[in-house]
């Protein structure tokens, strides 16, 4: 398998009230193409920080991060912007849709950045993605007019509009009810099976069930990893038991 993301001795620390807080300590991991990878960990373990650094959304204190062969640490502002346009798509826990724009506009506003595609083509692609995520008929609605689950679907469509190499998802079901959460996970899994590389952070066991590979983060370090066969609905209980067992071993 080809490496998609590679980190070497990745560290992140903050200064707070005169003390240095080390959030991530010497993390060296590889994420591979074609996989649905999940990072798990307890609250405060640094999993979101890791995701933000892997996606170029945050700076590293030391170490290296390479995504699709591109070293993203030390990139200039313009290069980072280009990286986000071309390589990375991001889904947040709080959706972060632009409230003054309709669903279609929220997707298009990201799509307009892609070079070599006309505005019309972008809009057609946005409509296709909104259809794919199941909210095609809601494209003229504003975020406040649709449910949380529908908002997150819109956020997924927005993240995919430029066909990124990796889709980063930070607790995408964290603020949704269980039914809506399951729908989003199904959608992500569906995308993953269609070849979309996904790296997701979650502390939700059910969310992690669909992963091909799970990394466990504890106190800023990778404590262990678990590889699982492709997810099938009928194996849910077995996978869940296996995952709980593994997580218990990790001290979850």
């Amino acid at each position, binding site marked *: 398998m080809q490496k998609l993301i590679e980190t070497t001795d990745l560290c992140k620390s903050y200064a707070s009230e005169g003390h240095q807080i080390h959030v991530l300590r010497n993390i060296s991991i590889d994420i591979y193409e074609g996989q649905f990878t999940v990072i798990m960990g307890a609250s405060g373990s640094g999993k979101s920080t890791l995701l*933000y650094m892997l996606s170029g*959304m*945050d700076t590293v204190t030391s170490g290296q991060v390479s995504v699709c062969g591109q070293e993203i640490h030390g990139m200039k502002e313009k290069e980072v*912007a280009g990286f986000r346009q071309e390589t990375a798509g*991001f889904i*947040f826990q709080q959706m972060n849709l632009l409230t003054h*724009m309709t669903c279609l506009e929220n997707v298009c506003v990201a799509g307009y950045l892609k070079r070599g595609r006309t*505005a019309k083509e972008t809009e057609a692609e946005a409509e296709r993605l909104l259809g794919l995520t199941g909210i095609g008929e809601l494209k003229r609605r504003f975020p406040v007019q649709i449910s949380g689950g529908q908002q997150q679907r819109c956020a997924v469509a927005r993240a995919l509009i430029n066909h990124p190499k990796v889709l980063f998802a*930070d*607790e995408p079901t964290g603020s949704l009810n269980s039914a809506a959460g399951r729908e989003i996970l199904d959608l992500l899994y569906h995308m993953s099976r269609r070849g979309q590389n996904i790296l997701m952070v979650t502390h939700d066991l059910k969310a992690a069930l669909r992963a091909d590979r799970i990394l466990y983060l504890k106190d800023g370090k990778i404590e262990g990893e678990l590889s699982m066969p492709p997810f099938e609905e009928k194996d849910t209980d077995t996978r869940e038991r296996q995952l709980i067992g593994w997580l218990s071993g990790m001290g979850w």
Partner: protein
Amino acid sequence: MGIWLIVKGDIRKRKGQAAIIIILSLLISMLLATTVSVLVQSHEQYDKMAEKANVPEAVNIFMEGQTEEADTVFDKLKERPETKSVSLEDILLFQSPSIKLGGEEWYSNLTILREYPDGYELAEGRRGEQGIYLPISLKSIEHIKIGDVVVLKLDGRVIERPVAGFFEDPFLGGAMIGVKQVFLEAEEFDSVFYMTESAARKGKLLGIWTETIEGKSFADKIKALNKETGLSEGGSMYMEQSLIKMAMLILTDIFLSLLFLFSLLLLAVMLVTVRYMLASSLEDDYKEIGILSTMGYTRGRLLGARLLQVFVLCAVGGATGFAGALAAIPSFGNFALDETGILWHGGIAVLPALLAVSVIFVIVLSVTLKSLWKVKKISPVQAIRNGKADVHFKRRYQIPLTKLHALPLPLRLAVKNVFSSLPQYLLLIVVCGFLIFSLISISALNENMQDLKKTAALFGSAVADISVTDHLEETEENRQKFQVFLDKLKESEGIEQVYSYDQQYVDMDGFKMLLGIDGSFGETTHQKPIEGRAPKYDNEMMLTKIASQYLGKEIGDTVTISLDGAKADFLVTGLYQSSSDAGKIGAVMTEGYRRLVPDFGYTSCEILLEDNKNLEESMQEVEELGAEEGLDLQVEDSAAQVNDMMKDAQAGIVLLVVFFYMLSILISALITFLLAITLLKRQRHEFAVYRSMGYPVRTLRTAFACSFGMIGIMGAAFGLAAALLLTSRLFSAIFSNVGISEFKADITVTAVLLPILIITGFMMLFSYYISRKIRRYGVRQLAEE
């Protein structure tokens, strides 16, 4: 104590907004205190100076051949109960080119040489020198200094006297009065006067002071004196002190009126700003207000705290502005009075200035109170639980992003942002509109003033390229010669128009007033009726609106005009406007005037050229044509003359324009800063989202600046509409006291485009600069750990 704590905390929290309120209060109080002080004190100083110099309430100048008449009127005046005192003194009269200043030609309508009168004090120089004393205004108008030589031409002799000093002149010292007076010591004057043989140079100055009579106004007393003594029928130039004062302070009053209006504009800006700031701070602190309510603070106290906060900030700004006014007033006063003939001796007019500033702040606090009233409606539980609800999307104006393909991406985002959050930008649209309105108006005034022909037309004066005056004795033969010259001139090549115009003081319904005599009503740009029609027959006349009000005569009424015993009735057919004698003037046709003076003929004319590029050549040709007819012509460049008179007013207007622009740029910077900081704070989440999608900071900053550019354009539309609707009315109100009751502002493309480009451009620049903060709005803040 608790309230004070809240006030301090709130000011600390919104330092930028607090600074803006302080700066605006400072600017308003400084400008207002300065303007009001200079306005009040310039008039007070004039009155004091006029009293000290014993300036007559009315003067009549008797020229060649009128000196006996002057003696008769003088004797009659002494006998009248309306007369408190009357004076008659010998004077010598000079006109260009018979007088030169500092070796240069001096364009002078009339210069009176007098014996140094009591009451006049020198502002510079010493008495008792063998020299001539000039009004102080000539120092700045003509750039004369002590020791420069004044040349007087008398009976073919040339008398040269060095300038020995400058005096403040509350009588004829102003730049806007065509007549000037210069003094010689008594012995010097006597020797010059008695060695002068030419009666043409000798005249008499009659001064009148009236008694205070209960129930009788000055006009009533003068009317009675005119009727009983023939005062209004004699003399060549009649002036009343009120008119002199007005003419002297006209430029000062106009400049100060404009500055006063600008202070009011700043007030409007401040009111809009305060309302916006309070609305946004209430929105931000909605929850805090709820929390404070639960602690036991009444909503009244919370409202009071915010009111106190605005009061404290205004007081700090106001006090600083007052202190600034104290420092600024001397130089501003000197600038304002520079060409009035008197110097600035005043300071701050404490009471009027305080009153004006207090009124302004009462207005600000009233608006503050009204804006804060909603505090009383905040429910603590609801505030704590929900905070301020988001503005609902239905209240927004939506322009689909997908319909804006033609625009570049930053502009697309700007359009979307501005229209979906229009209420947030209303403050800037209104302020921008006000600023652009004021700049368009002042630029329009400037453009009108810089173009001499436009200015002349505006003020009802003659518009010409060349002025011609015949200096031959006024005989029937010479008048015929001049008429032949006129006829030939009209046939000459390159001449667009030749017309004659004269003025004469006459008695109109018992008042001595100026009468214009026009040989070409309707053909020239001046003296066009603004109501009714121009005279067509010899028994018709026009009055200015001001003269019509003064005489109480309307279109259709009859006015009796008398001069040197002749009397005729004229039907008022129209109203026009003119700045001559502050608008107290009427006009008749040449034939109409001949009903009073049958042998009247013109001895001067104005020439409009088809093309004035070869002015010198044309002047030469006119002179040659006059010489062929045996005339003694004085041919002058009209534009140069008018330019000479107008240059200081023009320079003043230019200064005012620069001042308005600088202040407008400063205000737009302040308001842009205020709004940009607020918007950046509110939209930082959005910026982080945009950046997470891959939007470069530069694109977002450009979009942000474009939003302000759009606001500028919207404000410009509002400002332009206001300018088109109000500018003429505004200037009509300001200029109405100088005879221009209908000011038609010529709003040119430059006058419109320049303010729009400058204000919009600066707003975009300021907002782009401030938006560098977007760099700090990283994606990290979107992280939910």
